[in-house]
C-alpha cells in the first residue's frame, strides 16, 4: 500500500527535486535537480533514503502538507521552523509524523531553499530518469499546488539516530571561487580583475535558472581579433559564431520558459554549451551564475565558472545578500 502526500499550501514555490537528469544536454535538456545538493542528500540520509531520492525543495516561504500514512520526515537546507500537528519539532532531524497530521515547514529564517525528505522518497513518475521539476523546460512534475497529491514511499528502514545537524555557518559576505571561463578574452584584459574585486549583491530576479548579481558593470563584450587567425575561415562561409555587429542570428532566443537573459539581436557569440556554474555576462554587464535549470546552450560570453564546491551556497543566497567572486587556486579541484 502506497502513501500519498497531500499538499495543503505550497508556499511561493515548492518543487520536487532529486539528482536531476544529466546526460541529455545534447538534446537541449537542462540538468535540473536540487540546487543545494548536499542539503537534499542530508535530508534523505536522515530518513533512511538513498542520497538522491526525490525531496521537496521550498523557496523562502516553506510548505505545508500531510501524509496519508505514518512516516518520517526531515528538513534541511535553509533553516526554518517545523511543526507537526501544531507541535514544534527540530530542524535537521528525523521526525515522526502521524497519518493525516499537517506538517509545516515555515519560512526560511536564513537561506532560501529548505529540503523536506519523506521516508521512501517522493515517487512521482520519473521523466528521463529523474523526478525533478525543471522550471526552464517544464519537464518533470509541475510545481506543487494546493490539493495536489504526490505518491510517496512507505518508509520502512529505520533512520540513523545519531546525526546532529548543524546549520552551515553564515558569513556577512559569501565568497564564490571562480575559474577562468572560455570567453574571458571577449571582455578585455580588465574584466577578470573587475569580476574578482567588485562587490556584488544578489538581484531579486534570481531563480533556479540563474543567480543574478548586481554590481559595477563589466565591460561590454568586444570582438576578439586575436581569436580568429586571418584567413582561417573559408571565404564566403561566415561561421554563425562570428561577431557581426548588426546582423541578427539565431540561437539567442529560447523556446521554452521565461528567458534567463534578454536576447537582443546580434549577440556576440552564436550559442555554445553551458556548464553548471557558468558566469555569463549579458549586455547589461551584470554577471549571472547559471544554476541547475540553466539552458544547455547560450549566446553571451561565459567569462568564469564557479567552482562546483561553492554552488550549494548559491542556492541559499537571498536578494540583497553580498557576494564576491575570488579566483580559485590554480589547481583547486572540487571537493
Amino acid at each position, binding site marked *: 500500500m502506497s502513501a500519498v502526500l497531500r499538499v495543503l499550501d505550497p508556499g511561493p514555490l515548492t518543487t520536487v527535486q532529486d539528482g536531476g537528469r544529466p546526460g541529455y544536454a545534447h538534446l537541449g535538456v537542462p540538468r535540473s535537480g536540487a540546487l543545494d545538493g548536499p542539503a537534499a542528500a542530508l535530508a534523505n540520509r536522515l530518513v533512511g533514503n538513498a542520497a538522491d531520492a526525490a525531496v521537496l525543495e521550498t523557496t523562502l516561504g516553506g510548505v505545508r502538507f500531510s501524509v496519508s500514512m505514518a512516516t518520517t520526515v526531515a528538513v534541511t537546507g535553509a533553516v526554518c521552523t517545523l511543526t507537526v500537528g501544531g507541535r514544534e519539532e527540530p530542524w535537521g532531524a528525523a521526525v515522526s509524523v502521524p497519518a493525516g497530521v499537517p506538517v509545516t515547514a515555515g519560512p526560511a529564517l536564513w537561506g532560501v531553499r529548505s529540503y523536506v525528505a519523506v521516508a521512501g522518497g517522493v515517487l512521482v513518475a520519473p521523466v528521463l530518469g529523474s523526478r525533478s521539476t525543471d522550471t526552464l523546460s517544464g519537464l518533470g512534475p509541475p510545481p506543487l499546488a494546493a490539493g495536489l497529491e504526490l505518491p510517496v514511499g512507505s518508509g520502512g528502514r529505520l533512520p540513523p539516530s545519531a546525526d546532529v545537524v548543524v546549520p552551515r555557518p553564515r558569513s556577512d559576505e559569501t565568497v564564490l571561487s571562480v575559474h577562468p571561463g572560455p570567453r574571458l578574452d571577449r571582455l578585455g584584459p580588465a574584466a577578470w580583475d573587475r569580476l574578482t574585486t567588485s562587490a556584488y549583491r544578489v538581484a531579486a530576479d534570481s531563480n533556479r535558472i540563474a543567480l543574478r548579481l548586481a554590481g559595477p558593470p563589466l565591460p561590454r563584450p568586444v570582438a576578439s581579433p586575436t581569436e580568429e587567425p586571418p584567413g582561417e575561415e573559408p571565404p564566403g*562561409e561566415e561561421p554563425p559564431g562570428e561577431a557581426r555587429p548588426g546582423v541578427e542570428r539565431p540561437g539567442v532566443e529560447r523556446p521554452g520558459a521565461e528567458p534567463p537573459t534578454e536576447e537582443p539581436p546580434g549577440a556576440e557569440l552564436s550559442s555554445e554549451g553551458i556548464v553548471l556554474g557558468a558566469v555569463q555576462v549579458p549586455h547589461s554587464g551584470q554577471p549571472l551564475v547559471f544554476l541547475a535549470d540553466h539552458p544547455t546552450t547560450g549566446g553571451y560570453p561565459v567569462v568564469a565558472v564557479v567552482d562546483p564546491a561553492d554552488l550549494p551556497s548559491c542556492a541559499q543566497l537571498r536578494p540583497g545578500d553580498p557576494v564576491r567572486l575570488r579566483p580559485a587556486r590554480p589547481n583547486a579541484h572540487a571537493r
Partner: protein
Amino acid sequence: MRLLPAGPRAVLVEVDGTEQALALYQRFETERPAGLATDVVPAARTVLFDGVGDLDAVARWLSGPEPSAVRPSAVRPPAGGRVVEVPTVYDGADLGDVARLWDMTTEEVVATHTGTTHTVAFCGFAPGFAYCAGLGREVPRLASPRPRVPAGSVGLAGPFTGVYPTASPGGWRLVGRTRLRLWDSAATPPALLTPGTVVRFVAVPA
C-alpha cells in the same frame, strides 16, 4: 582546434565551424570512450565536454584522429544515420518575407527548402529543438520575437531551420508547420531530431 577552459570538470572545444563540431560530436558518439564525459554538447562551432573526471584524458582523446580528416566535406549524414521526413504545410506567416529576402517567389522558397538535404547540427534552447543545417542561404531573425509560436512551427534563422517542439516565444521566421511530434519524453531517444539526423522537409497540403 582550441581547448578553452570551462572550470574543473569541463572543457569547451572550439573548432572551425558547424561541420567540424558535428563531426567531433559524431566521433564521440561512435567511439563512446568510457567515462570520458557525462555530457557532450555540440553547438555552432564548439563542442562542450562536461562532467569530465580527467581533463587530460579529454585532451588525449581529442589529439586522436582529426574529425575533419575523417569527414572532409560538408555536413554529411553518418553511415546508417537516421533520416526523418518532416511533412510541412508551407503557409507560415513569414514565407512572403523570406521570399522577398531571397528575391524569389514563395513557390521557389518552398522548392529550395524541400530540395535541400538538411542535417541536425545541434540541439538547444528547448528539449528537442534542433538546428538543421544545409540550406546554404541565410535569413535574419525577426527584429522582435513573437510572444508565442505554436508547437510544430517550422522557422528559419541564420543558416538554420528549426521546428518548435513546444509552443514558446520565438524570433525565427516562420515558413510552415508540421504535425510531427518532435519530443516524447518516454521515447528513446526522446527527441525526433538528434544531432546528425538527416532531415527532409516535404510539402503537404493544408
